[in-house]
C-alpha cells in the first residue's frame, strides 16, 4: 500500500485540502497517507533500536571483546539489519529497502552535525576563559615567547586579517561575478574553455597560490612580504569559488525574466544589472560568503606572502603582517609550552566567533528580498525627482 498512492511532493508548497485524500470519498473517509510516520512505525523503530542494543550487549558480555567504537559500530549494523528484517516482514521488500535507506541517510546527516557541534563547543570551552578587553587592543610586542594569554593580544592579527580579506574581496568579487556573467549570460566560443579553467582554478591548492605570489610579488618584484601580497594570494583562491557558485546561481534565474527584460527593450547590461543579478542576489551573497570563508581561514598562502609579525603593522602595502590563522599556526606548530599554547586557543575562539558572526550577518542580508528594497529605493528617488522638478521649471 505504501507504494501506490501519490506522495506529497517535497517541492510543492500547496498542501492538499483537508478531507480531499487520495481515496477519500465524500463520506469523510480519512485519507490514506502512506508515507506518514505512524505509531506502528515508531514502535518498530524503537523495538529495533532496543533489540539490537540488547543483542550486541549480550554478545559483548559473552565474548572477550570490548571497546566503545566497536560497540557503536556493531550496534548500528545490527539495528539496520533488524529494522530491515522487520519492515520486510510487515510491508514487503520495497518498503523495507526504502526505510533502510532512510535510516542510512539520516545517520549520515547526523554524522555531519557531530563534528560541527564538537568543534564549536570544544574551541569555545578552551578559549573563552582568556578573552579579556586587552586581547583586542594589545599586540605581542611587550610579551615574551613563553607568556600565557594574560599578556598581550591579537590586535595586530585581527587588523591584518581584516585588511587582507577586504583587499582580496575588492579584487576578486567583481572579477568573479563578471566571470560568472560571462559564462552564463554571454557565452560564445570561449565559454567552454573558460569554464574548464575556472574548474581547474578551483582545484589550485592554496599553498601553490601562495608560492606563486611569493615568486612574483615577494621575490621577483622585490616588494618583500606584505599584507597586499597575501591579499593577492587570497583573491586567487576566492575567484574560482565565487565564480563557480555564482554561475550555479545565475543558471537558476529563469530565462523568462531575461527574455521579458530584453523584450521590453532593455540593454544587455541593463538586463544583467537590473534583472539577473538582483534575482540571484541571495545566492550571490552565499557565493561571496563561501569565498570569504575560504579566505579568512587560509593560513598557508598568508604564511608564504605576509610571513607573520609579532607587532602591529597597519600598512598592508609594506612589511610583514600577521593574520589570525597565522597567529594560531605559529603557536601550535612551534609549541613553545603549555601557557603560550593557550594563546592559540584564545585566537581560535576569536577566529571562530569572527567567522560565525560574518556568516550570520551574510545570512540575514541574503534572505531579505532585494527586489523589494530596490523598488522602494526607486520609488523614493522618483518622489524626490518629482518634488524637485517643478522648482527647477519655475527658476
Amino acid at each position, binding site marked *: 500500500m505504501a*507504494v501506490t498512492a501519490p506522495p506529497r511532493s517535497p517541492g510543492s508548497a500547496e498542501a492538499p485540502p483537508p478531507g480531499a485524500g487520495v481515496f477519500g470519498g465524500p463520506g469523510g473517509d480519512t485519507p490514506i497517507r502512506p508515507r506518514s510516520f505512524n505509531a506502528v512505525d515508531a514502535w518498530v523503530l524503537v523495538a529495533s533500536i532496543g533489540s539490537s542494543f540488547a543483542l550486541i550487549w549480550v554478545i559483548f558480555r559473552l565474548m572477550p571483546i570490548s571497546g566503545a567504537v566497536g560497540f557503536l559500530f556493531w550496534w548500528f549494523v545490527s539495528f539496520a539489519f533488524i529494522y530491515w528484517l522487520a519492515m520486510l516482514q510487515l510491508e514487503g521488500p520495497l518498503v523495507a529497502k526504502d526505510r533502510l535507506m532512510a535510516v542510512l541517510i539520516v545517520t549520515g*546527516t547526523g554524522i555531519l552535525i557531530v563534528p560541527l557541534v564538537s568543534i564549536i563547543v570544544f574551541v569555545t570551552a578552551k578559549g573563552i576563559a582568556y578573552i579579556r578587553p586587552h586581547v583586542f587592543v594589545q599586540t605581542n610586542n611587550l610579551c615574551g615567547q613563553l607568556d600565557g594569554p594574560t599578556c598581550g593580544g591579537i590586535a595586530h592579527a585581527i587588523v591584518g586579517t581584516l585588511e587582507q580579506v577586504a583587499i582580496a574581496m575588492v579584487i576578486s568579487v567583481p572579477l568573479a561575478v*563578471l566571470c560568472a556573467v560571462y559564462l552564463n549570460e554571454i557565452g560564445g566560443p570561449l565559454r567552454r574553455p*573558460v569554464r574548464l579553467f575556472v*574548474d581547474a*582554478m578551483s582545484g589550485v591548492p592554496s599553498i601553490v597560490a601562495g*608560492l606563486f605570489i611569493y*615568486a612574483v610579488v615577494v621575490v621577483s618584484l622585490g616588494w618583500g612580504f606584505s599584507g597586499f601580497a597575501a591579499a593577492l594570494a587570497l583573491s586567487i583562491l576566492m575567484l574560482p569559488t565565487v565564480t563557480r557558485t555564482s554561475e550555479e546561481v545565475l543558471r537558476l534565474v529563469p530565462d523568462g525574466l531575461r527574455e521579458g527584460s530584453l523584450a521590453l527593450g532593455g540593454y544587455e547590461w541593463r538586463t544583467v544589472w537590473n534583472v539577473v543579478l538582483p534575482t540571484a542576489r541571495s545566492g550571490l551573497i552565499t557565493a561571496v560568503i563561501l569565498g570569504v*570563508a575560504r579566505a579568512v581561514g587560509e593560513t598557508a598562502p598568508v*604564511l608564504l606572502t605576509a610571513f607573520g609579525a609579532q607587532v602591529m603593522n597597519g600598512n598592508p602595502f609594506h612589511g610583514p603582517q600577521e593574520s589570525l590563522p597565522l597567529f594560531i599556526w605559529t603557536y601550535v606548530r612551534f609549541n613553545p609550552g603549555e601557557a603560550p599554547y593557550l594563546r592559540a586557543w584564545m585566537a581560535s575562539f576569536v577566529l571562530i566567533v569572527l567567522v560565525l558572526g560574518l556568516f550570520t550577518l551574510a545570512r540575514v542580508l541574503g534572505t531579505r528580498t532585494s527586489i523589494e528594497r530596490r523598488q522602494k529605493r526607486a520609488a523614493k528617488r522618483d518622489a524626490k525627482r518629482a518634488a524637485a522638478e517643478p522648482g527647477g521649471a519655475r527658476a
Partner: protein
Amino acid sequence: MSTISADVAQPPDGDSTPDAPRTITHTRTGVDRAFRRLATGAGLATFVILFLIGLFLLIKSWPAFHTMGLKFFTTSRWDPEGSHVFGIAAILYWTFVIAIVALAIAVPLSIATALFITEYAPRRLRRWMISLVDLLAAIPSIIYGIWGLAFLEPRLVGVSRFISKNFGFIPIFKVPGSNLNPGAFAASAFVAGVIVSLMVLPICASIVREVFSQTPPGEKEAAFALGGSRWGMIRSVVLPFGRGGIIGGAMLGLGRALGETIAVALVISPIFTISIHVLATGANGVAPLIALRFGEATQKFGIPALMAAGLTLFVVTLLVNFAASAIVARSRSGKGVEI
C-alpha cells in the same frame, strides 16, 4: 496593383528566388559591446592567471630540476640543503592516500546529507540544515587542525585500533608490529584523511545538494505516480539527474583534499618512505611539506626544491580537475530553467 506587387516580389531580371525569411540583424549599442568585452576579459583572466602560475613556478623551480632531472619524481628522500638529493615520490604518494581516505568518507556522507536536505527533511528543518552545512564550510582549516590535534586524534586512535583488529586481514589496514598499542596509530594518514574529509564534506555536500534540488519536480512525481517508493524515486530520478553534481562535488573535494596544507601539517608526523599501512603512524603531503620547510629553506637550494614540489602539485591538481571537468560537462544539469 498586381503588376506593381509582381515587380516588387520579383526583380526585373527574372531571377525567381523563393521567399526566404528576412535575416535578423542585431546591432548592439556601444555600451553593450563594452559590457561584453569586459565580461569576456574577466573570463579570460582565469586563463591568464593559471598560465602565469605555471610559468613562474617553472622558472623558479628550474634550478631544482636542473639538479635532479627526472629522478625528482622517483626519489623518496628530501634533503635539498645538505646532499642536494631530493624527490617527491613518497610525498606525492601520501598526498593521494590522504585525499582518497578523505573522499572515501566525504562523498557518501555528502550524498546522504544532500538527499536528507532535499528529499527527507521537513521544510523548516531544511533551511537550518543548509545553514549548518555552509557553516561547516566556513570553519577555517587551522581550526580543524587544532581541533583535530587536541580532540579528534585521541578518539580516532580507538577507531583505528578497531579497524586494525577486525579488518587487519586486509593488508592496508594492518599495522605491523604494533600489538594494538595506541601510540602506533597516532599521526597516521587515516587520522589526517578523516580531518580532511570534514573539510571536504561541506564543499561536496553543498554542490550535490544544489544539483539535487534542481531535479525536475515533474519527473519526481512521475516516479511516485508509477508506484515508486521514496528510495525508488531517488534512485531512478534524483541520482541519475545529479550524477554530474556528485562528480563535480567530489572533484572540488579532491582538489581541496590534495592541496590541504595546514590541518594535515599539524596532524601528521612526516615520513619519506612509501608504505601501504594507512593506519600506522607517519604520512606526508606536498602542501604540508612546503608549509613546514618554507621557513628554513634557502634561496639557493631549498626554495627551488619547494617550488618544484609546488609545480608538481599544481600540475597534478590541474590534471585531476581537467579530467573531472570533462565528465561533469557531459552531464551538466539544471540548464535552462523555464518559468
